[in-house]
């Protein structure tokens, strides 16, 4: 274990997962960081102190995780199971099962429900307060047009991105049918979807180095604001190489966002002013996941090969926690009009 000096990549967490990182999430109440991995483990770190606070082993690779409160969390696993973890007692129990691996999981503070999306083309809502056992805790199952790839929550809105470039927008209070059925503005497979912190829309990234900024407001004025931009690309000898954009994380205060791609870069963007604010130095391998801490002072970066080129030798999986400078994330006022204009 090397104690990394404060470097350009941020502080590396000791005792990282031994296989690909599937997701990382900061708690809403502290600087605790929940990490799910393909090595079948879920780890809880105290990110500011660099201490491993807890570790759970599952029956299969863990594809997603989220916090309930500071003392407990939920995980979605390749073994079709949705689990609840209680950190203090190192206890876990099963919330329920899907018919296929569970790809993503979210906990809604407003409804107190857990929402899971699976490759069995369904969404399921769970009430974690119910007694253990599927028949007690399952609230509802909602069919999706395709396998669920990514999900994001803001307030009562739930955005579900599936294979086949479908995007469904739900109102958590009425899950019987989607509030909006959409198609991705991007032409390629959706990698990640994240709602704006202000609840007006969502950002969606694809495997072809592009991010679309969408808005919920269906009026013409509302829709005219949407746009897409290219990122995480490289020009080499006249050829463009495009990389998948694996992760999007919004800054909780400024509403700016970071994207991470298979090129190993993390970029920070100002969506309102359509500007790139910052690019962090390159990481050794793909950026698998990103998360800002609740106050936006810390950014956790999972540098972990995401299997985009199949099974091949790759750099070790690592999680970096970097303290975020305000300059890097604060929106700048629009630049001076270009002189030639």
């Amino acid at each position, binding site marked *: 274990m090397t104690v990394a000096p404060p470097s350009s990549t941020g502080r590396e967490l000791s005792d990282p997962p031994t296989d690909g990182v599937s997701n990382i999430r900061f708690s809403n109440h502290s600087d605790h960081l929940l990490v799910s991995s393909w090595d079948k483990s879920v780890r809880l770190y105290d990110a500011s102190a660099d201490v491993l606070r807890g570790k759970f082993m599952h029956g299969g690779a863990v594809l997603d995780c989220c916090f309930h409160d500071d003392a407990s969390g939920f995980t979605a696993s390749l073994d079709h199971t949705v689990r609840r973890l209680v950190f203090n007692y190192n206890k876990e129990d099963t919330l329920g099962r899907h018919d296929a691996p569970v790809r993503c999981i979210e906990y809604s503070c407003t409804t107190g429900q857990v929402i899971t999306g699976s490759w069995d083309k369904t969404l399921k809502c769970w009430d974690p307060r119910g007694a253990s056992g599927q028949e007690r805790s399952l609230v509802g199952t909602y069919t999706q047009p395709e396998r669920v790839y990514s999900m994001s929550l803001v307030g009562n809105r739930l955005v579900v991105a599936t294979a086949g470039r479908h995007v469904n927008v739900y109102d958590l209070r009425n899950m019987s049918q989607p509030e909006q059925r959409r198609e991705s503005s991007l032409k*390629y497979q959706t990698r990640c979807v994240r709602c704006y912190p202000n609840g007006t829309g969502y950002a969606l990234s694809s495997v072809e180095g592009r991010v679309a900024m969408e808005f919920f407001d269906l009026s013409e004025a509302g829709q005219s604001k949407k746009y897409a931009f290219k990122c995480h690309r490289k020009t080499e000898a006249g050829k463009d190489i495009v990389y998948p954009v694996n992760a999007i994380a919004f800054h909780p205060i400024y509403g700016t966002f970071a994207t991470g791609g298979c090129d190993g870069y993390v970029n920070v963007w100002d969506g309102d002013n359509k500007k790139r604010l910052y690019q962090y130095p390159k990481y050794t391998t793909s950026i698998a996941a990103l998360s800002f801490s609740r106050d936006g002072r810390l950014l956790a970066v999972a540098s972990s090969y995401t299997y985009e080129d199949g099974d091949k030798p790759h750099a070790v999986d690592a999680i970096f926690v970097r303290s975020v400078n305000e300059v890097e994330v604060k929106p700048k006022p629009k630049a001076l009009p270009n002189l030639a204009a």
Partner: protein
Amino acid sequence: MPTGVNNLLSRMETTCGALLYELQIIWDEVGESVAERDRMLLELEQECLEVYRRKVDQANRYRVQLRQAIADAEAELAAICSALGERPVHIRQSDQNCGSLKAELLAILPQIEEMRNRRIDRKNQFIKVLEEIHSIKNEIYRSDRFASNGPAVDEADLSIKKLEELQREMQALQSEKSERLKLVLDRMKYLDSLCIVLGLDFKKIVGEIHPSLAEAAGSKNISNSIIEQLGTAIQNLRELKIQRMQQLQDLTTSLLELWDLMDTPIEEQQTFQKFTCHLAASEDEMTEPDILSINYINCVKTEVSRLEGLKESKIKELILKKKAELEVLCRKTHLIPDSDSAMEIAIDAIDSGAVDATFVLEQIELQIARVKEEALGRKEILEKVEKWMAACDEESWLEEYNRDDNRYNAGRGAHVMLKRAEKARALVNKLPAMVGALASKVIVWENEKGIAFTYDGVRLLSMLEQYMVLRQEKEQERKRQRDQKKLQGQLLTEQEAIYGSKPSPVKNHSVKKRPRSSCGGASNRTLSLGGPTLQTPKREMPPSAKATPNIRNSKKNEIINKYRPKDDGLAPPSSGRRVVGMAGHPAKHQSPNLVNARQRESPVVRKPFSSISFTNSSKTNVTNTLEDRNKRHKEKLHKTQTNNKPFTTPPKTISIAEQENRTPQTMGISVASTPSTSSVPVQTPTTPPPLQTTITPVPSTKKTVPEEIEYSFEERRAGFVLPRSRLMTVTQV
């Protein structure tokens, strides 16, 4: 002689006489002989004598005794007197010998009694004084050599002088004691004040020296060693105090500096006011309780380190701000800033503490100053360049305007346009002169400075040259067109002669503003967007010319460019450097499939952050260009498209397709293709290619499923395969 005794004697004489007479009678009666009578009388007389003699002896002895007693008394008196140091007054009295011995004795006895009492009193006084002295000495020299034994009074010398002497000694001792006590108390008080200031436990420190000192009441130990120990304790604490004071003053100095540096608000300063007000205080002025305690010093220390951290980050921020300023400045002056990466490295170095932040700041400021200075020198030329560019803008506008054959149609704003065109023409005429003047100015500048004048990294001279070359080309083109037109005119007149009517000439090439609505239907107009005739000149344009305003040749481009982000990284094609780097690659973008390729080929390259609605229209455009091609390559295209992965077309496009009734239905099918691992480089295909990207999905899927199903990386990694029944539903969708 008292009469009573005389009477007794006379009575005794009578009784003696009577008894003698009685004896005479008896004797007469008895008839005693005279001899007997005489012997008897002698015997009587002898016996009487004997009695007398005994009595005299007795009296004599008594007298001697008395004398002895008197002498003894006198001797004692004398001894006492001498012991008391007084003159024996009574001896003189005895010389006078005023009375009998008994009287004398009686006179002496009370005197003796009195003297004895006096002596006892004196002795008691002595004892008291001596005891006092002893006790004081004991206190002072307690732990030292002074052995404690009771006071011994010298009986022989109890004189007042001696007493006074002793009393003096006692007083001296007493004053010494009080002095010492005062000293001890003073030192303790001082110690106490030191302890308060330093935030130490006074009782503990004093208790270590001697337990008795810690008690509030009770006698204090005032021995030499205690005083000495107190002294050393005070010395130690003072040293500690001075040391801490130094520390605190150092800290407050840096605190004040930091405050000053960062304009810390008064409220924040208030909490530390009591430290800072002691900045200039001397040692004795530091009296506030706990002001020098470890806690407070630590508190100040943490504040200082906090502020230092703040300063560090502020400086970093400042550096970044300065950097931004530098960038803006460079952008304004069209200079290429010094290697960005060097700055990044510098900032990283600050993070790691390898380089002093202020040094970097200085460097940046220096750089800014340098750029500013340089900007000043460039200003004149830059102004000219701007003028030139504005003129170029107008020129291109004019060109376009000239191409519009409806330009003379009376319409809204037509007269304004006319006026503008007039002005533009005048301007264009002046252009060569302008360029010439600019070039000569630049040459002078370059000769003067000895470096090349760069504009956004490109040498201005070469830009000008290219512009001139381009202009010449255009001139030739125009000439050719004119000739052609003439020819066409001839042809037309001939036709007219034959058919009678004159068809509207190049209406298809009419240039209009790009319709804002993305809906189809206006195929003619949108077609013009991607019209090949318009494309050509632009594509042939040298890259550096592209960096000049020529890129805004047409209105439509301006609209696009409106969305052009300011950040270099976001807008690769519009940045001069980037374009240079891509020279020789007219088709700059990869296109994973056919349609994409078409879209890219069109000059209207979708810029990052440009609105999606525009994409739609460009798709419309693409569809139309496709149509054109379809006429020729319909068969081929049809084939390739079925082979190729169909792409999703927004519904609007489909409607056009239906309207036009030409595009094959395959266009409508929407199974999005997976561009696979997109990190594989994708080249621009000239013909609709099969997907070049090397996807390595699960091989079995490829075999069994005729139409490929997309899988995410995770699914592929997990080996997740959709069951066959599901597959059917997918294909049905």
